[in-house]
């Protein structure tokens, strides 16, 4: 097995600050290499450093050896497309928004491989047929779904003949059901060469196999055979990462809901239409006090619309929604949003926002402090605005605000999908525990079936 890519003490700095500590690794033919770590762990910088794509503000040290030769930045750039290629994180942004898909592939055959126009087009068409995009060849990226765009990007990236593929979060933002297909496609494209994948997703690391490197804040914490590391992690951080995967969460205690608890909400034969398309119909369920109900399904299946409809923010096209608690005020039916920073105004500090709420509803101030401790929120965040605290803190602050209003029903719309796995696990368990304690009913939407299965009392699959 020849070594295709070898890094010796590669490090990245901004000024004097080290973003990526010196790291050495070897990528061998037929043996995929995966780098696992949370956002901010410096793993994307590594891929950019290998390609020679680091922004000008960052400096680079160390040696990069490709096919046995130490190559300078310019020499590596000359290999782009032909030997070495990197897949983008966000395929939608990496594809020319104005050019039809097929031309973004055929131009590679034409310009990189020097094929005549008609042959380039024929090859591109064949490629798209192979990845199941035959019908979408003449669509522009904006008309494609995330999974389709990623398949198009992979076809375009590999058309030049490169078989050393660097993939930076290739499945970011994709539904779980689409994830496997993309990983298999990447594997098949790199058979003749090798694949270096960067991901935060333990499941992908497991699926890819090969060698695994675990990184934390610019530092390598553990490396070895993927399955070995994942089954028998040595480092505490690796263990934490693996434990944060919903699949390995502890099962919820059985019968956590009191069967005699009163029903908060009853939905009968619901149907919702959006843009002329029926998202779902004939959906009936009931939610009890303190019950956590999970909703799963692919993006666009109407998960969020269901929640909004229960909060009367969207009309239903058929069926009935009955709210049983007549004494509850409208503001006790609340929602937690997917993207925490967008759910707060940045114009004032979080403390001011909290104060606004306390004044509006005459909430006893002594309730705040214990709840903040419970949610593990430091007092200092009250001085800052929503852009200056972490996503996890902000989502916990959102929960704090909601709980102060004694909600009877909370619609949590993918509350942790934008958070790192470890934080996500924290926030989810806090939310579920507190909801059960306070008797608040929760409708939790998620794209992750494992997460829902492990935390919810009732699951609705759309």
């Amino acid at each position, binding site marked *: 097995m020849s070594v295709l890519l070898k890094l010796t003490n590669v490090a990245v700095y901004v000024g004097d600050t080290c973003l990526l500590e010196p790291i050495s690794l070897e990528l061998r033919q037929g043996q995929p290499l995966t780098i696992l770590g949370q956002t901010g762990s410096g793993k994307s910088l590594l891929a950019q450093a290998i390609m020679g794509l680091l922004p000008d503000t960052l400096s680079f040290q160390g040696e990069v050896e490709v096919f046995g030769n130490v190559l300078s930045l310019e020499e590596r750039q000359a290999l782009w497309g032909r030997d070495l290629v990197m897949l983008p994180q966000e395929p939608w942004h990496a594809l020319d928004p104005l050019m039809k898909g097929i031309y973004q592939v055929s131009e590679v055959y034409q310009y990189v491989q020097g094929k005549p126009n008609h042959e380039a087009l024929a090859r591109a068409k064949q490629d798209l047929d192979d990845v199941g995009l035959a019908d979408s060849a003449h669509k522009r990226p904006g008309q494609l779904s995330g999974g389709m765009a990623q398949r198009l990007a992979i076809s375009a990236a590999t058309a030049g003949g490169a078989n050393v593929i660097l993939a930076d979060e290739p499945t970011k933002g994709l539904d779980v059901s689409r994830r496997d297909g993309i990983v298999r496609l990447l594997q098949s494209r790199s058979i003749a060469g090798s694949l270096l994948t960067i991901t935060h997703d333990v499941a992908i690391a497991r699926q890819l196999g090969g060698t695994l490197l675990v990184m934390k804040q610019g530092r390598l914490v553990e490396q070895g055979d993927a399955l070995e590391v994942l089954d028998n992690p040595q480092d505490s951080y690796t263990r934490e990462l693996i434990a944060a995967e919903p699949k390995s969460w502890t099962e919820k205690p059985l019968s956590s809901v009191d069967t005699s608890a009163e029903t908060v909400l009853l939905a009968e034969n619901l149907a919702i239409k959006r843009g002329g398309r029926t998202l779902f119909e004939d959906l009936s369920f009931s939610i009890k006090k303190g019950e956590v109900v999970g909703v799963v399904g692919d993006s666009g299946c109407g998960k969020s619309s269901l929640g909004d409809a229960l909060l009367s923010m969207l009309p239903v096209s058929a069926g009935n929604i009955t709210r049983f608690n007549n004494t509850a005020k409208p503001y006790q039916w609340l*929602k937690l949003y997917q993207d925490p920073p*967008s759910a707060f*105004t*940045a*114009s004032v500090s979080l403390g001011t926002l909290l104060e606004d709420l306390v004044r509006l509803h005459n909430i006893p101030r002594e309730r705040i402090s214990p709840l903040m401790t419970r949610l593990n929120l430091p007092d200092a965040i009250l001085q800052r605005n929503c852009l200056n605290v972490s996503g996890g803190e902000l989502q916990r602050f959102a929960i704090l605000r909601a709980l102060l209003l004694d909600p009877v029903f909370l619609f949590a719309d993918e509350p942790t999908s934008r958070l790192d796995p470890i934080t996500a696990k924290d926030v989810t368990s806090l939310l579920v525990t507190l909801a059960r304690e306070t008797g608040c009913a929760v409708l939790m939407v998620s794209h992750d079936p494992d997460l829902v299965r492990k935390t919810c009392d009732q699951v609705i699959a759309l």
Partner: protein
Amino acid sequence: MKKTLRASQLVGLGLLIGLLAFSVLGMAFSPYSISQQDLNAVLDAPSSAHWLGTDHFGRSMLTRMAYAVGLSFALGVLCVVTSSLLGTALGVWAVWGGKRVDHVLGMMVNILLALPGLVVVLLFAAIVPGSFWILYLAISLVQWVEYFRVVRAITQNVIQSPARQSSEMMGFSRWYQFKRHIWPAIAPSVFTLAAFGGANAILTMASLGFVYVGIQPPLAELGLMTVELFPFYSDAPWLLAQPLVVIALMVFGFHLLAGKRV
């Protein structure tokens, strides 16, 4: 807005305050009036009696410039205040007031946008020639549309934002939602538009004066003075330079104050 101004914005502000001070002090302390002629002292160079010289009728240029700058500022400020209040209020109302309000306002805007602004102002100016108030009315009428469109677009996003929705769900009033969500989002744009609007109002008045259909003689107005003094460009170039430089400085000051482009 607690944000501090950038250095270039401060320069712009300083420029404008300087011009305003010149105007106020000039009007307050000059011993001459804008129409007081002295045919024995025509086209004089700056002197101790006439600090900025005299024009072709022997009128004090300093006094005339002070009045002209004052007139420009007065119009600029009036137009900015009127059009920004109107445009912002209607822009928010168009989003919040429901579909029908939005349609009616949208129709009005389309009518106003059908013609270039200057042409609308020219037509209005033709109705009552030389009137400051008709200029004010016409320019404000043209300018509020800009605020309306920008404010409406931003407000539409804010209204749909999770942040505003969540405030509404928690029972906060509309005034609160405006104060915390809408105003912080639109304020920077409104400010920028206002700075450009001030420049445009001044420029429009000068343009009309320049083509002789704006403020009429013997009043002093920058555009009008430019045409009046143009024939003497070789005899007394310092005279022609004055209105030209001051218009450019005023516009530049407002542009600097704006800080960024719309």
